[in-house]
């Protein structure tokens, strides 16, 4: 016999991991086999086999902690079983309950998904903490402007003269047309430095950017490569791009993996910045304060922010020693770009998010979840009365309060997880709808990331704990004797139930009031009297062509039989009026033809432009009433004003136009100067046709192609153009609307359950009242009163809550509706009628019942 023995650790493994009942046999057999094998095959093989067999004989369930859990698991198994039976026994209430929870949870998940996505823009980037955007606080007089922009000259100087700056990425946006076989694709692009590629951590699927310093270097995303049918063979291909005049050729250097959607700089076509350097006029490159691009800087160390900002301001003073404006250079952390509205999102920065929207989402999600959790608690507290005997019996057998408590918490976990599964289904079903609603591209695959899963689990588990805690606490406190005798009443439970019911109605009413006010406000804005006659006006916004071409297009349009009038404008630009007495910002507009007549804008003083009078074409201007007021002019007509733009200086007012809203009614009307003198190219065209019905799109399109090919035909009706300004309000209104319907539904469901359950326990009382001669009216009064009182308190609280929230929101609008009697009465009407219908339907059931049925057993 050999003296060698099997490996000790493997032996230990069996001892720990082999089921105790079989340990002796298994261990003995393995040892015996070991000795036999040593003599047969040698020590090495025997040892090896021993280890393999030891592992094979192990059962993970024999681990000591598992053994301990096993006993508790048995108890939990029992809890689950009774919990499940309880759910099955009360099918109606359970399904109401779980459905409600599922709705609340899925709403909350959606809100979390959205908020998490919006709040974590750019934060996946390794260097996001050291990366900043150059922004400027610009103060002139009393006006403070926040500018998210910089110039080429600044970027170059900062790069070369501030040692703390590691990399600089200038981003200049542009767009062009790509010819693909027969169709033309409009493609936005950015021109940028090589450093941006590493800052964004672009992943190249094909090729590589190389030095990326030639004017014809471009890289494209995999999506664009797919659109152009270039997947797998893009590198070295020629890309023909038209950026205004002619097609130019570019060489594709690489194809990068799609930039994640939560990135602030995200384009499908990236061009070398040297292209901009080669083509831009000298002036644009060297003027210090020509803000027309965005610049990202990466610092060596994020602690250097303050000193870099100081140096940037010093450099500004060196370059612009006699600027009147107060200019403050700042570094905006990359992660704040997305949600900060002040500095804007243009020039290559993706459309920003809105903190307001996130708050709204989160608020509504949490409201709905709270309401559904309250439903859960309330249902269970009321239902548990029926279970007091079960609890008492458990206690008699020896269960402790802790045990009862954990039983009930287990049940709430059971319900919550069933609700969670349902919520997941709901979530996946409404995700496409939701994602188009918030203009994102969420897919079910988006849910599989650790942050969402973690957050969703936290929401789910806290729902289970919070909603189950209170019922569990109350029920586990029941006295045994009273429960067994059937005398246990939930005193404190009732009080709490009613308070919670009130809270539900506060939240629901607040949402209803909010939704109604938003609706009113959006309606008010949409039907706002802008003092412009939109009828039959077609609008071509920002035509990308020379003025001569635009004028030719207008002449062509005038030939069409249905066209009544054509006019063109430059777009509403801004400048500043500076005189000895005053200085303020003013908007100015160049028009040609008779725009005032076309849009039916009233001249309240003086006269309109007259084609016969030559000075009207050069020195005459129209101003609006806001301008007159701001300047403090008594007799505006004939006044010479200190307005200066390009070559137009000190013009004379020939007339005053009514304050028409050239922008959306969301803003106050700025002072405006209108001139005919050619200081700014014409860019947009208004066409009035005699009837909207006669508008022939094809004929317009032909003229467009004749003049502006290859740019795609674009037009809109002016009224739609104005209405589209309220899209975000519309979106918010819809969101609040959905939240409002869901919360009212949930609250109603809760009320239905509670009233039903509480009345169920009073059948006897009602029967006795009836036997003694109570009339139905009397009964309705008695049993409705209490709940109406709760709802009324909820209404009062909800209206107060709604008032504060809504006033805050309405404060953003200079033109707004009031949170007044109309909205309040409609809110009260809607909420109260839903509540009353719910309550009365339940009371009706009880009052109608035959009293004999409930009195017979005694």
């Amino acid at each position, binding site marked *: 016999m050999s003296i060698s023995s099997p490996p000790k650790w493997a032996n230990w493994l069996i001892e720990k991991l082999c089921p105790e009942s079989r340990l002796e046999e298994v261990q003995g057999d393995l040892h015996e*086999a070991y000795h*036999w094998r040593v003599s047969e095959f040698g020590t090495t093989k025997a040892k090896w086999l021993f280890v393999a067999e030891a592992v094979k004989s192990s059962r993970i369930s024999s681990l000591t902690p598992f053994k301990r859990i096993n006993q508790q698991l048995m108890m939990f198994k029992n809890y689950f079983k009774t919990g499940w039976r309880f759910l099955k026994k009360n099918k109606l209430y359970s399904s109401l309950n779980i459905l409600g929870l599922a709705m609340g949870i899925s709403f909350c998940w959606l809100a979390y998904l959205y908020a998490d996505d919006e709040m974590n823009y750019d934060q996946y980037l390794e260097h996001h903490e050291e990366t900043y955007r150059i922004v400027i606080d610009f103060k002139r007089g009393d006006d403070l402007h926040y500018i998210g922009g910089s110039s080429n000259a600044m970027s170059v100087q900062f790069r070369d003269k501030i040692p703390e700056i590691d990399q600089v990425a200038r981003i200049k946006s542009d767009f062009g047309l790509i010819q693909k076989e027969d169709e033309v694709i409009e493609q936005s692009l950015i021109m940028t430095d090589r450093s941006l590629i590493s800052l964004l951590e672009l992943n190249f699927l094909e090729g590589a950017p190389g030095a990326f310093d030639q004017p014809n270097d471009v890289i494209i995303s995999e999506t664009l490569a797919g659109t152009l049918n270039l997947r797998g063979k893009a590198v070295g291909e020629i890309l023909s791009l038209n950026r205004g005049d002619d097609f130019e050729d570019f060489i594709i250097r690489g194809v990068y993996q799609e930039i994640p959607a939560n990135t602030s700089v995200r384009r499908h076509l990236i061009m070398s910045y040297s292209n901009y350097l080669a083509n831009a006029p000298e002036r644009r490159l060297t003027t210090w304060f020509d803000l027309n691009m965005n610049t990202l800087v990466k610092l060596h160390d994020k602690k250097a922010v303050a000193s870099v900002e100081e140096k940037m301001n010093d450099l500004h003073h060196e370059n612009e020693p006699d600027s009147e404006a107060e200019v403050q250079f700042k570094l905006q952390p990359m992660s704040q770009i997305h949600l900060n509205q002040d500095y804007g999102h243009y020039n290559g920065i993706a459309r920003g998010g809105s903190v307001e929207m996130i708050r709204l989402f989160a608020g509504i999600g949490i409201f709905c979840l709270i309401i559904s959790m309250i439903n859960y608690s309330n249902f269970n507290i009321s239902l548990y009365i029926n279970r007091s005997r079960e609890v008492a019996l458990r206690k008699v057998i020896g269960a402790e309060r802790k045990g009862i408590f954990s039983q009930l918490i287990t049940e709430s976990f059971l319900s919550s997880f069933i609700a969670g599964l349902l919520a997941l289904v709901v979530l996946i079903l409404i995700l496409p709808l939701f994602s188009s609603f918030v203009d994102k591209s969420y897919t079910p695959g988006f849910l599989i990331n650790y942050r969402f899963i973690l957050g969703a689990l936290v929401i789910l588990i806290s729902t289970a704990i919070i909603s189950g805690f209170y019922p569990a606490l109350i029920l586990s406190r029941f006295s045994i004797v009273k429960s067994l005798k059937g005398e246990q009443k939930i005193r404190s439970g009732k009080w709490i139930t009613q308070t919670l019911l009130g809270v539900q109605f506060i939240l629901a009413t607040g949402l209803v009031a909010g939704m109604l006010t938003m609706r009113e406000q959006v309606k008010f804005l949409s039907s706002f009297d802008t003092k412009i006659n939109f009828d039959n006006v077609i609008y071509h916004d920002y035509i990308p062509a020379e003025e001569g071409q635009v004028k030719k297009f207008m002449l062509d349009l005038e030939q069409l039989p249905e066209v009544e009038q054509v006019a063109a404008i430059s777009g509403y630009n801004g400048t500043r009026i500076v005189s000895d007495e005053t200085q303020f910002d003013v908007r100015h507009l160049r028009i040609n033809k008779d725009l005032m007549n076309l849009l039916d804008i009233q001249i309240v003083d003086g006269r309109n432009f007259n084609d016969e009078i030559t000075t009207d074409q050069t020195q005459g201007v129209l101003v609006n009433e806001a301008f007159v007021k701001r300047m403090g002019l008594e007799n505006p007509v004939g006044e010479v004003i200190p307005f200066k733009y390009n070559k137009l200086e000190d013009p004379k007012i020939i007339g005053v136009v009514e304050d028409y809203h050239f922008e959306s009614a969301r803003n106050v009307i700025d002072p405006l100067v209108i001139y005919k003198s050619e200081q700014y190219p014409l860019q947009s065209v208004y066409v009035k046709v005699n009837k909207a019905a006669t508008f022939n799109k094809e004929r317009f399109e032909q003229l467009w192609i004749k003049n502006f090919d290859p740019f795609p035909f674009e037009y809109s009706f002016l009224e739609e153009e104005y209405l589209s300004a309220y899209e975000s309000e519309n979106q918010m209104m819809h969101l609040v609307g959905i939240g409002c319907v869901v919360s009212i539904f949930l609250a109603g469901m809760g009320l239905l359950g509670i009233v039903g359950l509480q009345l169920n326990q009073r059948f006897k009382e009602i029967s006795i009242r009836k036997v003694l001669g109570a009339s139905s009216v009397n009964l309705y009064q008695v049993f409705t009163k209490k709940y109406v009182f709760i709802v009324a308190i909820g209404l009062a609280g909800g209206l107060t809550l709604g008032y504060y929230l809504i006033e805050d929101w309405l404060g953003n609008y200079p033109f707004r509706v009031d949170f007044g009697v109309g909205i309040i009465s409609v809110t009260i009407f809607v909420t109260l009628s839903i509540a009353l219908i719910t309550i009365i339907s339940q009371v009706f059931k009880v009052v109608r019942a035959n009293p004999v049925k409930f009195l017979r057993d005694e």
Partner: protein
Amino acid sequence: MELVGSLEEIVLMILLRNDKINSVEIAKEYYNAIGKNLSVPSIHVTLKRMQKKGWVKSEFGSPTAERGGRRKRIYWATPKAYELLSELTKAKSELWKGITKPSLQYVHI
């Protein structure tokens, strides 16, 4: 007739040839007969399964030194297993009779 797995069949045969043996002895005999190593845990699993079906019975035997003083569990086959196996063997040899003339495709050339 209940279905008998091929490992079960061989283990049963080994048990029927012997009087009361333990898993390691089964493994040894298997090795001697077939020439392959059969792992002890897989014998354990097979025995346990057959015990449930009532083909095998077991009891604790005496402890030995090479087992570190642990008792061994010894197994023996039941009459039911004997019936089953003899039926199975008969059926198999009937089947085999049909294969007396091997066609050309089974012959190695």
